[in-house]
């Protein structure tokens, strides 16, 4: 399904400096509608920074990010969210003072396709059921297990019916059995035709989930293509194993 | 929270609430005259209150009780003083006055310290028919306040009278050739200072003075040296500061350091405090300031000795004596009426003349006593009145001759 889709998110020569450090250097790639796109690379290669630039958590030093025809580069995070980009965080961030269902409603109430009141609740209940959190909707989030918190965060992101979903190491920290559940969940999102950008370390997930991948090292894109292709790329292997 | 901490919390709460309940039911003996006062024990005005009001109340209560009490209802009743702290907060003040009137049902109340507090409390005194003999209140609204609150009396003069005293002093010094026309004037940027400066500006200009430096400074300014430097640079003949206690001290210290060479140097509140001369010693010889008294009358001399003996402190040379006089007026009015009938006491105050430490006091149709000293001058360790309204016993002001 990849080839015939149009690009929905276009990143061009994106650069982010922190003082003298260049975290993201001249990154360019695009994401097509209904595809799952992976961003991989060693630790500190700039993957999360790229995500933060797209979601508006950080401001780019130069370069552009466009969603369809809208330029996102200088926008504050809440406007980007309203245009339809939703995300999860590298370290899970649920809202500790709210119940599970309120967490999901939080995702629905303000963003891309706002829902409020009974409609939002019904929508949130359905999402929780969909993510196997049915029956836990009124629990304080502190009492949820780690994977349930991850699910809840995903539900919050999905609640806005995003155009593009950013998953920042969503699978990190799960044990093997949870990991399988997690991968199946993302696979089901893909099957629904959602557009997803996935930052991951878990290579099994990349192989089984991604249509295409971008590989980063030291802030630069060093490879792009299908998972099978990039993972056999010599430069990619060197980047992962080191120069020695 | 575990069980113990819940219990503990509940106990604390109950104990604290109990304190309140306890005090409400405190029983009082019947054969006393209950006199209430709400004072500022802490907060911005506490320092002034502690100098001018509190020792006088202590002394007066002791004197009256030592002689057996107030003569009322054909016998003698001792005074029982009820005293609350308002932390210099008007809302607390009003509440405490209400409490004195309706819970403690005191027979009489003494006046509070500060113009704002007298005005804020006046409606309650009026509502319950208490005479309010205001002392530490200087206002130009005397007629309006008196018509609103017919129970309110004024003893320390109006803003205009207060400034007129300063003007007359300066005019006198100019006529004597001591100073020229150039005046440097500063004021503290708070209600009192702003009001005085606003009255003084046209009044001094009209009297032919030229105000060569005219600045305000905020309350609590830590370094007043730029003001004295600025005033000095304007080369004035006289320096006038409508100041509050901390800045009266601060300005004078800076004036000494900068050697502000003027032949007339005036500061307002606290110049009359004993602490002022204790701090500066002989250096303030010839300093002018708000207040002043005639220290030569036997009544005043006896008062000052008694004050020192009873309270261990010297009274100030301004409102202390007037505040004591207000207590004497109340005392004489109550004994003159012979009962605790407050309306009768108010009428008695309106219609009689009282013999007090500051001389005979009576009130005009605006409940105002037009007899007060307005400007004093330090002479050999005594702060003598050099300007007054209706007193007629002020001495002539002299030149200030350097800071030695």
């Amino acid at each position, binding site marked *: 399904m990849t080839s015939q889709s149009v690009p929905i998110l276009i990143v061009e020569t994106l650069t982010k400096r922190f003082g003298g450090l260049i975290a993201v250097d001249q990154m360019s790639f695009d994401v097509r509608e209904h595809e799952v796109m992976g961003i991989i690379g060693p630790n500190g290669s700039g993957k999360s920074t790229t995500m933060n630039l797209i979601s508006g958590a950080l401001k780019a030093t130069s370069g552009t990010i466009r969603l369809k025809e809208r330029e996102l580069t200088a926008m504050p995070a809440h406007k980007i969210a309203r245009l339809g980009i939703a995300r999860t965080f590298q370290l899970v961030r649920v809202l500790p003072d709210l119940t599970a269902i309120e967490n999901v409603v939080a995702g629905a109430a303000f963003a891309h396709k706002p829902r409020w009141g009974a409609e939002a609740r019904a929508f949130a209940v359905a999402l929780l059921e969909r993510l196997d959190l049915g029956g836990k909707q009124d629990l304080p989030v502190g009492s949820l297990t780690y994977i349930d918190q991850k699910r809840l965060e995903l539900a919050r992101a999905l609640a806005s019916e995003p155009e593009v979903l950013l998953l920042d190491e969503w699978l990190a920290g799960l044990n093997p059995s949870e990991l399988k559940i997690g991968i199946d969940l993302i696979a089901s999102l893909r099957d629904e035709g959602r557009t997803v950008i996935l930052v991951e370390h878990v290579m099994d997930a990349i192989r089984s989930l991604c249509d295409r991948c971008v590989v980063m090292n030291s802030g630069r894109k060093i490879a792009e293509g299908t998972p099978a292709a990039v993972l056999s790329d010599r430069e990619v292997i060197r980047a992962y194993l080191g120069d020695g | 929270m575990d069980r113990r901490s819940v219990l503990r919390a509940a106990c604390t709460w109950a104990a604290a609430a109990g304190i309140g309940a306890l005090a409400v039911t405190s029983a009082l003996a019947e054969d006393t005259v209950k006199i209430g006062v709400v004072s500022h024990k802490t907060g911005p005005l506490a320092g002034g209150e502690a100098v001018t009001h509190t020792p006088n109340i202590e002394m007066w209560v002791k004197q009256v009780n030592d002689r057996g009490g107030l003569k009322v209802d054909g016998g003698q009743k001792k005074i029982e003083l009820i005293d609350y702290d308002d932390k210099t907060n008007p809302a607390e003040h009003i509440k405490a006055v209400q409490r004195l009137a309706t819970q403690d049902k005191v027979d009489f109340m003494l006046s509070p310290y500060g113009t704002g507090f007298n005005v804020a409390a006046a409606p309650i005194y009026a509502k319950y028919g208490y005479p309010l003999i205001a002392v530490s209140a200087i206002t130009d609204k005397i007629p309006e306040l008196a018509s609103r609150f017919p129970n309110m009396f004024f003893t320390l003069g109006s803003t205009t009278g207060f400034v007129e005293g300063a003007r007359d002093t300066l005019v006198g010094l100019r006529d004597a050739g001591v100073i020229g026309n150039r005046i440097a004037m500063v004021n503290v940027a708070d209600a009192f200072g702003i009001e005085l400066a606003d009255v003084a500006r046209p009044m001094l200009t009209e009297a032919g003075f030229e105000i060569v430096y005219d600045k305000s400074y905020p309350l609590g*300014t830590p370094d007043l040296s730029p*003001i004295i*430097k600025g005033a000095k640079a304007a080369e004035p003949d006289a320096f006038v500061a409508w100041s509050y206690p901390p800045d009266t*001290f601060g300005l004078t210290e800076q004036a000494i350091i900068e050697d502000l060479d003027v032949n007339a140097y005036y500061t307002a509140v606290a110049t009359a405090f004993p602490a002022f001369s204790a*701090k500066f010693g002989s250096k303030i010889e010839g300093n002018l300031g708000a207040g002043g008294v005639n220290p030569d009358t036997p009544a005043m001399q006896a008062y000052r000795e008694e004050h020192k003996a009873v309270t261990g402190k010297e009274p100030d040379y301004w409102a202390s004596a007037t505040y004591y006089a207000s207590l004497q007026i109340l005392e004489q009015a109550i004994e003159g009426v012979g009962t605790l009938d407050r309306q009768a006491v108010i009428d008695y105050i309106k219609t009689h003349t009282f013999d007090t430490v500051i001389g005979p006091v009576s009130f005009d149709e605006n409940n105002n006593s037009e007899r007060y000293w307005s400007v004093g001058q330090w002479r050999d360790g005594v702060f003598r009145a050099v300007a007054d309204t209706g007193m007629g016993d002020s001495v002539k002001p002299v030149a200030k001759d350097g800071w030695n």
Partner: protein
Amino acid sequence: MDILISGLLLGGTYALIAMGLNLQYGVARIMNLANGEMLVLGGLAAFWLFVADGLSPIATVFLVAPLAFAGNWLIYRLLIRPLVRRAKTQGQLDVDSILSTFGMSFIFVGLMVTIHGEYFTYSYLADPFSILGTTVAVNRLVAFIAAVAIGAAICFWLYRTQSGTAVRAVSVSTEAAGLVGINVERVSAFAFAIGGAVTAVGGTLISTFITLDASMGVIFTMKALIIVIMGGVGDIRGAIIAALLLGLVETAVATIIDPGLTLVAAYVIFLSVLLFRPQGLFGRRAS
């Protein structure tokens, strides 16, 4: 020249007011609203001993410093530490310390009023002294020199000694400091006590030229808070520079524009520093 010298002297006074709170908030993380009362207490001691025994305030400094140190150490151990232990977040600790030190400030005021309810005013070294043609008061000069000495001593301690390094480590991160084996509670108690001692000594010196009274502490607390925040939490150099800056600005405004605007100008400076550098002059940017 006048402005520069008078401004620096005033800045020295402000440094005396703020350095103690900087240690208390920067290191021990206690927003101490009773700071001003501690300062006034130092002033009261000076006044009391001067009037009763003729003791010079300079001598009082050496009496006040150990007493205030001990007193503040006890306050930390008995009253503050339980709050630190139960607080889960810095926000919670801020709330608790605001409430408890506000209570303490009332207690201090209440105690001081019973000792001396009138103004603490006396005259000590109120003599002129000429520096480069500018007349200054000797007592202010003494306070300035003391401020410089105390500031230098604290900086030396923080940046040149091992125990000082531990203190700075705690001010950067209590967690990390704990991980490398620093006894965070002890360091905090120590910093709090030193801070209290510095504040009280400052009060002793300031009382020689500013007329204090028992209720005046809140004015100094506010000034100290503003200087500490303007300098950046946890950086003593920032506090000192902020203090000097405030002193210069206030004096310049008073001399050139209008003394009535000094405090307005001070707050304008404070507010604009925060607007352009939300973490203060030397503060670390919150991550």
